[in-house]
């Protein structure tokens, strides 16, 4: 459990820092790197970074959007189409970020096993 927690925090911190410099795939780097150094087992390999980034992107996007009354989010939610719901759009945003980080973490885990051998 402790390992999970460390991985979660590390993924979050790396993503937070890299988001200042890198494009959207900062979350993939974060997932990959944290899996290299703080390896997890079974489904946690995917789900811990997934949850970390899911929450990070949702919180980040919410913070940006609420300051502007979700004007643009509601329009984009018409475009995508998510029936104009900014909440649904936040969830999709979180899922996409989390999924990317989780997949990259699986690769990180595999690379670490290669090195260990």
């Amino acid at each position, binding site marked *: 459990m402790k390992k999970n927690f460390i991985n979660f925090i590390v993924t979050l911190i790396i993503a937070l820092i890299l988001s200042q410099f890198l494009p*959207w795939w900062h979350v993939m780097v974060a997932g990959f790197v944290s899996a290299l150094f703080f390896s997890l087992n079974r489904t946690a390999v995917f789900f811990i970074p997934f949850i970390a980034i899911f929450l990070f992107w949702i919180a980040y996007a919410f913070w*940006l959007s609420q300051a502007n009354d979700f004007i643009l989010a509601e*329009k984009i939610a*018409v*475009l995508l189409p998510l029936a104009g719901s900014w909440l649904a*759009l936040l969830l999709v*945003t979180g899922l996409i970020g989390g999924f990317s980080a989780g997949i990259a973490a699986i690769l990180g*885990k*595999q690379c670490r096993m290669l090195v260990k051998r």
Partner: protein
Amino acid sequence: MKYFKLPLALVLTLVVFYGLNSKFGSTPPMGKFLSPNQGFWQNEQDEDLNTTMQIIGLEHEVTVHYDKHLIPHVFAQNNPDLYRAQGYLTAKHRLWQLEFQTFAAGGRLAEILGEQALDYDRQERRRGMDYGAEKALLKMQEDPETLSYIEAYRDGVNSYINELDPKDYPVEYKLLDYAPEPWTIKKTALLLMYMTKMLAGRESDLEHTNALAKFGKKRYDLLYPDFYDVNDPVIPKETDWGFINIEMPATPEGQTSSDSISITETIDKPHAQNGSNNWAVSGEKSYSGHPILANDPHLSLNLPATWYVMQLATPEHNSYGATLPGALGIISGYNNHISWGETNATRDVIDWYKIEFKDDSRKEYKHDGQWKKTKQRIEEIKIRNRETLYDTIIYTHHGPVAYDHNFKGDNVKAGYAMQWVGHIGGNNQRTFIKLNEGKNYDDYLDALKTYTAPAQNFVFASTEGDIALWIQGQFPNKWKGQGKFLLDGSNPKHDWQSFIPQEFNAHSKNPERGFVSSANQHPVDPSYPFYVYNDGYETYRNRVINDFFRSKDKFDIQDFKDLQNNNYNLKASELLSYIYTTMDTSTLTDEETDILNIIKSWDFYSEIDQMAPSIWESWWTKLEKIVWDEFDADSLAMLKPYTYQTIYMLKNHPQDELMDILSTPKKETAQDLFLITFKETAEELTEWRAEHGDYKWGPYKATYVGHLLQALPAFSRFDLNIGGDYNTVNAASKNHGPSWRMIVEMTSPPTGYGIYPGGQSGNPGSKYYDNFIDRWAAGDYMDLLFMQDQQDTQDIIASQTLTPKQ
């Protein structure tokens, strides 16, 4: 299995990366687009206004005050700084639109949108848009002053672009996954060319040639007369043209070709309703003794809005009004001394010449009994995710051979060349720069002198008390009938011989009647010595406007507002009374009679809460279609007669053979058509009512303002409550109408009122994106804040300082 997992994870990671980093069809790259640090979430904000920005090349500081409408009031020390700031601020608030419009102008949309835009791009290249812009740029470069300003504007735009990280790009870039490119002075020329196409790019010579071949001259002249039986021209009929003393070109012997054209499809025409109103009353006719001027250009209703309102001031001049992103200065507005506005002065400035090539190589064409050399221009059309297409376009001395066997034609040894005023080039930017600086009538005239295209009715009023209207553009001096139909490209007598000398352009200064006005109607009456032709002159708005100004002695601001928002449907009134007296109503059902009674009690005002205008619209649409069913049945490219003449035919030639419906054995008359289409209308509206409720004009018309990307619903505004239709003074139809309404009273300093269907920000995430729309629909105006002193900031919500970058 172990050894299999790593490559699998690697492949999976790459697939996810690629999948979320790329655009598929119209779906944006989802990872990029949705990431909070880079994607659209970054655009979820209002403009950031309270800052100091550094701009390369500024000589002095420039102060920008924003009022509560986000209108910038710009105070610079000299013109180059002013236009640099205009470029910078336009980019800051409208970057995507600014760039996209010039891509559309030059036929470069396939670069952004891919193959789907290729046909459009080819058509624009063949129309010579890029060629014309190059010619215009050469003319602008000949004038060092204009050149230095368009360069300053360019640098201003680029200062802004260079400030941006990809996360700051307007949301449309993120949606379409591309990046802004540097602005160039050619783009200003392209934007002006875009306006030229929009306003002086409509013609139907080939369609008319076909109609002439089909109907013969007598019938043709009945259907498409040069003058209608009503004409209240822009320049009053009583004008004396005695000062025009030059020889008119003689009409050459021999008939023009009476063949029909082998092509069945012509290039897209600009919107038929592109037009405008403007007028001014003299001090004598004004309630206050100061002249009052008004202007409202009718264009497609777009978001981001066509116009961007600014105040542009230096110690030498101070002007206010509507700007076009990409062009310098105020286009429709006023300064401390004069006010000006434009309506389109349509005239036939595009002619088509049949070209005969010597052989398949198309290196030579016939002209004046000789074989003359053609030129080739190779248009490079880049296409997103595909190989670049190179389209070779042959140029003759007339202009580009737009139609040939590579484009809508089939004959390798023939083609149709286009001669267009838009290809001659002209420094039309200078006119607006000079108007911004103008102090009186002479300055206005000097500004106009060099203006070539698109020809405009420039209305004018000054604090000195003058009003005027010049119809200004470069017009070929044609022999009677020249260019109405396809011309013979080998006959030198069919060439444009000369241009009408500028001083002979029709104009009116301080006319006795006390007002000047224009609404795209015929510019003059037949006594004007030059041949004036254009198909489709406006026939309704102008009469309502002129009748209004003849109706009383004094006019005030409220009169002006009422007139701009006037929904009186003269067209409906002229046909309906005839229908009521001649249509046989004996076979109508009770339901149909009820509907007929609704429209019969109509006062002809197309107001939103009335049902009659909906009945009229539906009825007229069906009627017009069925009258001219002969045209739809014919495969030749042809143009149906114009509205005024259609109604004329219905009323004066109800037994004409064209009234017949081809698909029925019976021989119909106009009265039969009225009844048939009325019954269809009743049926349609009854169905509409069952689905949507009462067919009141507001919801039935459902006016919308559409985003430039094919009215992307998320970024557009629908179901606007505005009355009128395309023939009322308030020319608001479904997606077209008054794109800027302005009224200026020439007090010192002038007092202005204005509104437009949009907002100052181009960002769909900003509350300033569309905040004027509802007020515009309601006929409301903003009291324009014309600052006289940059220290007086009581109505200012934020200020920025642009400082020279060291």
